[in-house]
């Protein structure tokens, strides 16, 4: 009898999206914790030693998820930026702003764990190689996006300017991803690819996938937490925010 179709556009309004996020966030934290415990247990306690890299390879369980997320969050951020530009929806710009700091965090962690992995394996913390340099550019894109938005007072104009930067920068993501194929680099090739069987033991693969899922759930949770604050801030002149804060007293 009831209309089974969920009207997704309903949630494009901050007023209806806000309570929804409140319900979803604890679930994302719970799944993040479960995946993290499972992934780290497999990665650090159960997975075998790597034949070439010894125990140092275990950084993979942090490095690969951080790198994947840094690229994926950028794509999601650019998607919301484009949606905001095309449809002028309020929430899109807020989502893009909420994702940027988390993306920057993962880009930094990718470089940090990469440096700590590079030192024992290559003998260098850093090399100006295609993969590393394009990942550094990704971090700068995130920082540029955040700085640009912070420099413009009017949030709608800040959204537009940020969106253009995000969309121009999106070309960097495939460059990072394919850099190990396109150029001759020090960085090892992809451990997991869509086109062929993974070149690693099943246990290692599972550890990595679970850690990536944990980072994914973490990113959603923390981005939703941040978008809630942004919603309150930007909608502070509306009745629903007033009513909400009056309730909380």
């Amino acid at each position, binding site marked *: 009898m009831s209309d089974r179709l969920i009207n997704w556009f309903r949630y494009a309004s901050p007023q209806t999206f806000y309570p929804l996020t409140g319900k979803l966030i604890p679930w994302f934290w719970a799944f993040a914790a479960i995946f993290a415990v499972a992934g780290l247990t497999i990665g*650090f*306690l*159960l*997975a*075998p*030693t790597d034949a070439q890299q*010894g*125990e*140092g390879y*275990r*950084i993979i369980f*942090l*490095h690969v998820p*951080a790198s994947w997320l840094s690229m994926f969050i950028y794509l999601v951020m650019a998607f919301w930026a484009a949606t905001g530009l095309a449809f002028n929806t309020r929430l899109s710009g807020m989502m893009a702003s909420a994702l940027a*700091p*988390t993306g920057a*965090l993962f880009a*930094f*962690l990718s470089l*940090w*764990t990469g440096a*700590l*992995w590079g*030192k*024992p394996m290559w003998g260098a913390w850093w090399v100006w190689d295609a993969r590393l340099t394009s990942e550094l550019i990704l971090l700068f894109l995130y920082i540029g996006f955040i700085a640009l938005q912070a420099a413009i007072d009017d949030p709608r104009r800040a959204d537009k300017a940020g969106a253009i930067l995000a969309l121009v920068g999106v070309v960097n993501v495939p460059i990072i991803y394919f850099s190990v194929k396109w150029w001759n680099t020090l960085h090892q090739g992809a451990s997991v690819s869509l086109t062929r069987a993974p070149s690693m033991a099943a246990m290692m693969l599972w550890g990595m996938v679970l850690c990536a899922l944990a980072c994914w759930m*973490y990113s959603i*949770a*923390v981005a939703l*937490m*941040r978008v*809630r*604050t942004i919603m*309150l*801030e930007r909608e*502070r002149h509306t009745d629903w*925010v*007033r009513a909400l*804060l*009056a309730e*909380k*007293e």
Partner: protein
Amino acid sequence: MHWNSLSEFLAMGNHGLYVWGSVVVMALLMVAEPMLVLQGRKRLVARLKRQYRAEQPVTRSGSQRTTGMTSTSPTATCRSSD
């Protein structure tokens, strides 16, 4: 279980510094980020509540909230808010 002893686990085959340096920094930042978000939210909620309270005498005259803030006019609160 892959390890025979705790010290072997901590040593990570002589790569302990690199492995644990990655783990510790990643864990710290991933704990710090949500805490900073929560803190920012708390600060915003407190600021908005102050702001609304300051505006209240105008919208709801005669309420018990007018203590000390009677001189606040809507224009004054608008200026202080942005």
